[in-house]
């Protein structure tokens, strides 16, 4: 597919990034003067970006449009011209980011109304939107990397927004450091591309990736995957995402559910031509996706913190997306469709959770909820729709897109296909279980509220975005799969859709998945709904529950495998630095100072000794010259 130069509105698509960036700059540099209207400006830039993105998308017409900007790095051998690539794939992401982003900005006006630092919050959100748009709009890996680091920074700042809480500060650091591990992988992949191909632009890399040795392509693929795992909270770098829920809830909804954490999926989908060359790396993507979707679903079953349940659910759902894009051409569109619908319903669920917390004095423990349905009708209904969409209730969003992934897994046609499909179906049951458990503990049963809590519905500025997202949760799947197939929209990027030969009939898969889902819901009702929920988590539980509560010991593994050796290494290095390096440096400095004083004694101040030193020098000079010429 040839790229064409920009025309019309698309030539102005750099404004998409510039608008929120300018918003962030005004809010951060303007200081307190902007306190009164800062949140409105922040929301306005993102809404404007959404409108512009929508207009650009309508003009796109299946082309891949190149928007050249300027040359970012220009050295002899490395030229990085910065340009934007507006194609069907990036258009989809632009709409998701600005659309969901705009709704969440509106919601935040209400959610952060009483926070003294609301302006700063909107500045960071704007910064995030700008960086995320650069990530998906860049036409080369370096631009992507700049955006990648930008969203990492914004994520760090927003997780630690309430940095006076030690937990938030620690969570932010954890997120940042675990992301670094992935970022190193991405950086190395870019270095490798440049070293081997001499270019970092998508065009250049994809055009010549076929000429590389198989091992090199696999290395690039695996390093890109490492980057994707870090950003998207995938195994083995998944542990930061649940902790990141310490940030304000709109942040969890926008960054840690709908957009940023899906950047890894974008990276792998964008790099499809690379993975086409390396079945090994693609298989690893599959494995990562399958392992993560199971881990996330299991851990989600045992959490009591409402946001953590949703976070593990996010980990698990992104696992589905990785699984899909790991399947190759048959899975890309399914994965991206799920990414979009997930963006709607998960953002809605988080906003609902935020609304609940708002009503319950920022309580997050579901054991202190219960019986909220009659008190918060809008929240209950919108949250309920999001819940149904997530568990794959027939004809809602998740049903279409999740089924498509499971079908694609079976369509692999080999034993692995059956295994992956089976894992995905099992996880669908687990999803139904933990989400039903969440619904039951929050909205049904007897109230287990803290004394003095009076739940109330949130203001319209918060409920309106929830309603819109709920509408999206209901219809997005149908629209993307049946009415206006995403498959056709993305055909310019991933090729024309081929009629897959189904190994297992789609209807069978649907029935199977729905059956497993119903079993999950019923199990949850049996375990949670039928009985009284204890206000404190029971201590005497099975080893399985214990493991699930500790997220299958991911933190323990990280601590013993990485943190403790890291601390030990740091201590050893400090020791070497203090004794060895500093000792050598100080010793050298002392000896230099000493020789300086000794040499300084030759500076007597007497002309006679100066003249003598000159004479000595002259004799040496003459002697040396004679020695050279004679020898």
């Amino acid at each position: 597919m040839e790229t064409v130069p920009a025309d019309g509105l698309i030539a102005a698509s750099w404004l998409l990034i510039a608008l929120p960036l300018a918003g962030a700059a005004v809010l951060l540099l303007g200081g307190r003067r902007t306190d009164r209207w800062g949140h409105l400006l922040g929301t306005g830039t993102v809404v404007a970006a959404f409108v512009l993105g929508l207009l650009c998308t309508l003009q796109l017409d299946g082309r891949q449009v190149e928007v050249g900007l300027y040359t970012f790095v220009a050295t002899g051998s490395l030229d990085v011209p910065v340009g934007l690539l507006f194609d069907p794939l990036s258009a989809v992401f632009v709409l998701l980011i600005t659309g969901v982003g705009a709704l969440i900005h509106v919601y935040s006006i209400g959610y952060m109304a009483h926070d003294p630092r609301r302006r700063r919050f909107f500045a960071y959100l704007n910064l995030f939107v700008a960086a995320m748009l650069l990530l998906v709009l860049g036409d080369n890996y370096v631009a992507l990397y700049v955006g990648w680091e930008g969203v990492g920074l914004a994520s760090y700042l927003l997780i630690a927004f309430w940095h006076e809480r030690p937990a938030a500060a620690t969570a932010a650091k954890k997120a940042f450091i675990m992301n670094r591990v992935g970022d190193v992988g991405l950086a190395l992949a870019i270095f490798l591309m440049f070293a081997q191909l001499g270019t970092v632009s998508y065009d250049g890399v994809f055009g010549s990736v076929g000429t590389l040795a198989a091992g090199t392509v696999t290395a690039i693929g695996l390093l890109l995957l490492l980057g994707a795992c870090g950003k998207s909270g995938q195994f083995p770098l998944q542990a930061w995402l649940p902790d990141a829920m310490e940030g304000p809830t709109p942040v969890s909804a926008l960054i840690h559910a709908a957009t940023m954490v899906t950047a890894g999926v974008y990276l792998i989908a964008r790099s499809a031509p690379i993975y086409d060359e390396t079945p090994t790396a693609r298989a690893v993507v599959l494995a990562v996706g399958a392992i993560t979707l199971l881990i996330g679903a299991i851990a989600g079953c045992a959490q009591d913190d409402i946001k953590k349940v949703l976070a593990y659910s996010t980990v698990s759902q992104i696992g589905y997306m990785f699984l899909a894009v790991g399947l190759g051409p048959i899975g890309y569109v399914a994965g991206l469709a799920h990414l979009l619908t997930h963006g709607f319903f998960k953002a809605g669920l988080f906003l609902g959770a935020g609304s609940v917390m708002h009503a319950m004095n920022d309580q997050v423990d579901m054991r202190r909820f219960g019986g909220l349905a009659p008190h918060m009708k809008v929240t209950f209904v919108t949250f309920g729709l999001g819940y149904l969409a997530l568990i794959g209730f027939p004809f809602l969003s998740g049903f279409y897109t999740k089924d498509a992934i499971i079908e694609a897994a079976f369509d692999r046609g080999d034993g692995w296909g059956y295994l992956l499909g089976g894992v995905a179906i099992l996880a669908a049951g687990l999803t139904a279980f933990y989400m039903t458990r969440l619904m039951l503990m929050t909205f049904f049963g007897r109230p287990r509220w803290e004394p003095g809590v009076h739940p109330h519905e949130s203001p319209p500025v918060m409920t309106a975005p929830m309603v819109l997202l709920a509408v999206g949760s209901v219809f997005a799947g149908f629209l993307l799969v049946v009415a206006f197939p995403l498959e056709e929209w993305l055909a310019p990027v991933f090729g024309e859709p081929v009629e897959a030969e189904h190994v297992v009939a789609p209807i069978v898969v649907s029935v199977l998945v729905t059956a497993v889902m119903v079993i999950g819901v019923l199990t949850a009702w049996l375990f949670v709904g039928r009985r009284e929920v204890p206000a404190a988590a029971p201590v005497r539980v099975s080893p399985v529950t214990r493991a699930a509560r500790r997220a299958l010991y991911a933190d323990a593994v990280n601590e013993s495998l990485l943190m403790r050796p890291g601390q030990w290494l740091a201590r050893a290095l400090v020791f070497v630095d203090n004794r060895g390096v500093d000792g050598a440096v100080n010793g050298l400095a002392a000896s230099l100072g000493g020789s300086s004083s000794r040499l300084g004694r030759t500076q007597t101040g007497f002309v006679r000794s100066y003249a003598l030193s000159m004479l000595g020098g002259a004799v040496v000079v003459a002697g040396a010259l004679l020695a050279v010429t004679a020898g």
Partner: protein
Amino acid sequence: MIQAPDLSLGALAPLLFVFGAACVGVLVEAFAPRETRHPVQVAIALVGTLGGLVTSLLLAGERQVTAGGALAVDGAAVFLQATIAGLGALSILLFAERSLDPARSAFVAAAAVPAGSPRDRELMTAHRVQTEVYPLTMFAIGGMMLFVAANDLLVMFVALEVLSLPLYLISGLARRRRLLSQEAAVKYFLLGSFASAFFLYGLALVYGATGSIRLSAIRQDAAAETGGGVLLVLGLALLIVGLMFKASVAPFHAWTPDVYQGAPTPVTAFMAACTKVAAFGAILRLLYVAFGTSEWTWRPLVYGIAIVSMVVGAVLGLTQTDLKRMLAYSSIAHAGFLLTGVLGFGGGADGTGSGLGATMFYLLAYGLATLGIFAVLTLVREGDGEATHLSKWAGLARRSPLTAAVMALFLLALAGIPLTSGFTGKFAVFRAAIDDGAWPLVVVALLASAVAAFFYLRVIVLMYFSEPAADGPTVGVPGLPTTIVLAVTVAATVVLGVVPGAVLDLAEEAAIFVG
């Protein structure tokens, strides 16, 4: 009948301008009334130096040997003449500063009056200013410009004396700490004479060996396989000694700290910047033109001297407590770095290296930064004189952030930190040396730079991170002349560090010797 030598007046215009201004200055001193002398002298000196600068810039691209073969007006000569004239004009501005010293001048009113005598005390309070310093300086500048264009050894010697004698005198003209200043002048004179004698003796030996004092004629004799015989080699050795003295290269550096400290600070600035340019111009011409064909004879020697100079300058600088002395050792270390550039003689594609252009760029960058840093030194005062002791500068950043920032910039430039002119210069000379295979020397140079960076950065640490002393110095408000000098040197230091391309190209294009 004696034939008059051919003279190309156009090619000599820069020299004529400067020497003409010097002569007019002498006349003004004799005939103009005392009250009007100062502005007139400053104006004449500025016209002379700026005229020299403009005419030498107009001569760019000129290549000829004139004055009966005694002068070479080539790319290198013109570039260095322009550098000297420009730095000279800035020095004149520093000399002309009248608002910093309570006695309205850095120079003693009557140098011949014994220090501490009743007449001396009387003059201390009188508003009489010294104006002879301007024609003297103009003669020194003229001598330097002649020095870099001298195409035979005798003219070189005459130029050496013309530039040296006024310098000896004006070193002794300090208004404050007069005894220290006079001691410096006498030391400089004695040792300078000693060095001149070496040069003269070397000249005689070379003449004896080759029968000529013309550099091009010496070149042919030196090309012989033996290097031209013992006499020529000994002559070369003694010439080198004479020139290295002027360039304050160790081990011929002993005068430098004492004279830098004793001389009036504007004179120190002038010496450090302009004399260095002139002396290296002559060293380059002597080694490249007269002995360029027998590089193998002097290369090991210059290699060794460069190392000695860098190490002595850097190590001795560590324990200095007086800023002017510290800068003197810094100047010795920089002389070593410059010799590194001199060693980039060959190694290029066409057999000639980039050493000449790199060294000339370094001279320009170093001259500007040095002038600037001494100009800052004249601002920080205590009592009637300058506060040059290191301890007085503690916490200066809080008292006077702008002064401290400017000082820090120059210190960083001298240390060779990127984005300053010092880095570009060092990079250029080191690259030239590496191209010619002298990488071990560059390793030593880098280590010496690291050691030297310590004492530059120590001043910055002191200014920014120490508590200000209770009886700290006062920071004077500079008048227009010093302000111009600071503005020009700061701008040049930054520009040559950030976008050095144009000037580097210019130096590279000017890197041509004829003769």
